[in-house]
């Protein structure tokens, strides 16, 4: 099926791009067909974010969003920044980037659902349940669209009784907005060597729960961020507590995936976090109503790859626009999508010649607030490499003295290379879940509403099937069983006195952590059948 533009991923970047494309086409009276593919069963099903949204990009894209009922219902009111020790919570001065006046606490999934309705009203064709599984190239090697995933293959890859082959969607320009660590973006990075001039990307894993609380401590608009406990001083990360309307609280813990101890379990750190004496009272008597997890990009300015290649662009967090000190990325993702829309139109009108080495999207972005903001924030995240306090000191210097204009740029290293062997690491004894405030993995995954049809090939592909027991287990004591927030990976008896890696692919919540953190870089996260994966209601 031919389209002018195919967009992969109905998140904030992809939907903003689609809306901008149709807005411009309508202004010019042009006929421009725009199709958005989404691997989730519906728009928003795979979206997970904190989230506090700065409405700057939305103001530019749809200035009448308030009248149109965009779900930005809870203005952020009170900012608190706490340093937690095991028993105490010590208020810190919130750095200026963390001030949230004018911002909103939202469910990003619901914002995307609303954006999708706006896009459809503008004539965008949105196809949920159809993941892009393969990139199509023309004879010259330029991208000319994508193919959707096959349906109905047997576990061994052969065609089952209900087999439906994927459909090729041909496009004059293809925009990849798969979110953090996209599976097709990963291929594009290699194919077009898009990371040749930048630092490695670094990541965090965000684990989020939505609670309905029964506590007088609930206060809509209240924003709390913490650093410190339960993470050790060498591990980057922190928590968020956002008080929404209807007695709801979004709580999450983000752990930098450059952590070193293979015994660390982000999931259990998150459970433990809720038991802190300053945090627990909020959740006492409450009910957990949703759970999910998603990797996020932390590399910022110096990790931003080239964004342009023949036949298309990468935008949003597939490239990496999250602003770490702000703890926000939606506004940048949307703006990058809107800017990509302009770059696409330049190319479609023949105003931007393709095939040259120019990064036409990057050039357009350089003129926007996105790149200014990212450049200014660039030294904060890498400053934490040596731990919490050096990080706070260095970033305070960077923020208050240098105001982001340091003459140097701190660099990133690859997350998967930071894991230390188990032999030199200290095992962590996490407490058992109590079933009220803290929970086990399965009960949690259940709340993600994730589903993968049984009897399909495993979508988490091992490049070398022997590596888990040859490297991961003996050297790192099987870290995938701990970093996976969905219990996908389990080492079980192989029946011969040894162990083997069992992949419970049905549990997967599409967070991409395994593809990022696996020490041997042996796991390729691929899209499963259409519509599979989590079904997040309000995350």
């Amino acid at each position: 099926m031919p389209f002018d533009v195919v967009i992969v991923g109905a998140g904030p970047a992809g939907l903003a791009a689609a809306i901008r494309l149709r807005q411009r086409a309508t202004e010019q009276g042009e006929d421009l067909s725009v199709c958005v593919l989404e691997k989730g069963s519906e728009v928003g099903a795979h979206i997970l974010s904190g989230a506090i949204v700065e409405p700057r990009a939305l103001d530019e894209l749809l200035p009448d969003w308030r009248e149109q009922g965009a779900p930005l219902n809870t203005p952020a009111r009170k900012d608190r920044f706490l340093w937690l020790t095991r028993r105490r919570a010590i208020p810190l001065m919130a750095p200026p980037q963390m001030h949230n006046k004018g911002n909103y606490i939202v469910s990003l999934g619901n914002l995307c659902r609303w954006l999708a309705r706006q896009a459809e009203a503008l004539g965008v064709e949105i196809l949920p349940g159809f993941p892009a599984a393969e990139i199509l190239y023309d004879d010259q090697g330029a991208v000319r669209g994508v193919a959707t995933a096959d349906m109905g293959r047997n576990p061994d890859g052969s065609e089952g009784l209900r087999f439906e082959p994927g459909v090729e969607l041909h496009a004059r320009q293809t925009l990849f907005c798969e979110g953090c660590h996209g599976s097709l973006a990963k291929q594009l990075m290699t194919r077009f060597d898009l990371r040749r001039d930048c630092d490695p990307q670094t990541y965090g894993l965000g684990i989020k729960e939505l609670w309905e609380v029964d506590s007088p401590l609930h206060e809509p608009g209240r924003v709390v961020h913490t650093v410190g406990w339960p993470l050790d001083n060498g591990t980057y990360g922190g928590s968020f507590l956002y008080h929404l309307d209807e007695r709801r609280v979004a709580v999450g813990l983000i752990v930098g995936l450059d952590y070193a101890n293979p015994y660390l379990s982000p999931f259990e750190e998150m459970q433990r976090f809720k038991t802190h004496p300053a945090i627990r009272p909020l959740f006492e008597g409450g009910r957990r109503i949703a759970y999910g997890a998603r990797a996020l990009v932390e590399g910022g300015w110096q990790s931003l790859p080239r964004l342009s290649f023949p036949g298309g662009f990468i935008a949003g967090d597939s490239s990496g626009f999250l602003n770490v000190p702000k703890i926000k990325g939606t506004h940048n993702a949307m703006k990058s999508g809107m800017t990509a829309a302009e770059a696409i139109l330049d190319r479609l009108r023949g105003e931007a010649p393709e095939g040259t080495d120019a990064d036409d999207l990057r050039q357009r972005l350089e003129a926007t607030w996105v790149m200014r903001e990212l450049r200014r924030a660039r030294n904060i995240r890498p400053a934490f490499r040596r731990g919490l306090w050096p990080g706070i000191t260095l970033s305070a210097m960077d923020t208050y003295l240098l105001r982001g204009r340091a003459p140097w740029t701190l660099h990133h290293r690859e997350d998967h290379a930071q894991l230390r062997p188990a032999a030199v690491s200290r095992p962590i004894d996490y407490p058992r879940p109590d079933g009220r405030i803290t929970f086990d993995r399965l009960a949690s995954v259940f709340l993600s509403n994730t589903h993968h049809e049984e009897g399909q090939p495993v979508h988490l592909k091992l490049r070398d099937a022997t590596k888990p027991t040859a490297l991961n287990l003996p050297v790192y004591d099987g870290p995938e069983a701990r970093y996976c927030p969905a219990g996908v990976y389990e080492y079980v008896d192989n029946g011969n006195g040894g162990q083997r890696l069992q992949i419970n692919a049905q549990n997967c919540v599409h967070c991409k952590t395994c593809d990022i953190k696996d020490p041997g870089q042996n796991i390729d996260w691929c899209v499963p059948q259409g519509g599979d994966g989590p079904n997040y209601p309000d995350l």
Partner: protein
Amino acid sequence: MTVLVIAEHDHHTLAEVTRRAVTAATALDGDVHVLVLGQDCAPAAQQAAALSGVAKVLVCDAPLYAHPLAESMARAVLARAGEYTALVAAASSQGKDLMPRVAAGLDVSQVSDITAIEAPDTFQRPIYAGNVLARVVCEEAIKVLTVRPTAFAPAADGGQAEVVAIPAGEDPGLSRHVDATMTRSERPDLGSARVVVSGGRGVGDEGGFALLAEVADALHAALGASRAAVDAGYMPNDCQVGQTGKVVAPELYIAAGISGAIQHWAGMKDSRVIVAINRDEEAPLMQVADYALVADLNQALPALRDGLKALAEKGA
């Protein structure tokens, strides 16, 4: 008020689910009558009459009822329905097939799959596959109810009800029995068993599953399996517990050597008591279980079997 329980039987033996339905019926206040529709079904009728709490048994013995066809059975029930304030059957496949047709004949609502009777007009029933419990008030003059058998104890013997023969109705001529294939099994059905013993890949091989079956027999339990065990060919397809297989909610669920696939968990999480036995104490199901035993299954399963047998002997 008088309640009519529609019996289920194979003409010779009254089904256990009907004993349980009688218990539910007695909670509705009022006399309990039992209707037995069958052919040469006097033995089943006698067993119904011997149930404690039953005041009268109506027997309709005719070739028309040789097989449980809802079309003719509904007519027979409707012919008597006016004498009763409630019509009750077990939420078995037969009760589920028959009762809504009766309700339609009366143009009344039905309350399905009741798990608790709070008052003669107020019931509890699970909705959304057991994820939510609903309290339902039914104000129909004649209440048509099906009750979940596992939620009620079987009525004990000890009654001496009169048995009254009633005439057969006409054949509506809408349906005809062709054949039936019953998988004869001493074990209870997975979907309605009070106890389920389930195995995964960790059970090992055929020998392990044979051991598991012995444990199940000692508990008079149904046998279940994880997807992995079914895929490995140790257990047949219809034993699989999980979303695309069966959702079970027994009183006791014993999971042996089962890994942490979410489907399996979703298929059994509403069980009242969950036991997990696994060599790996970090296995995800071990976190979920009410009782988790870290043990080698080769030793734990025989010990469990022998322990259960010893308990049974002591009890007997």
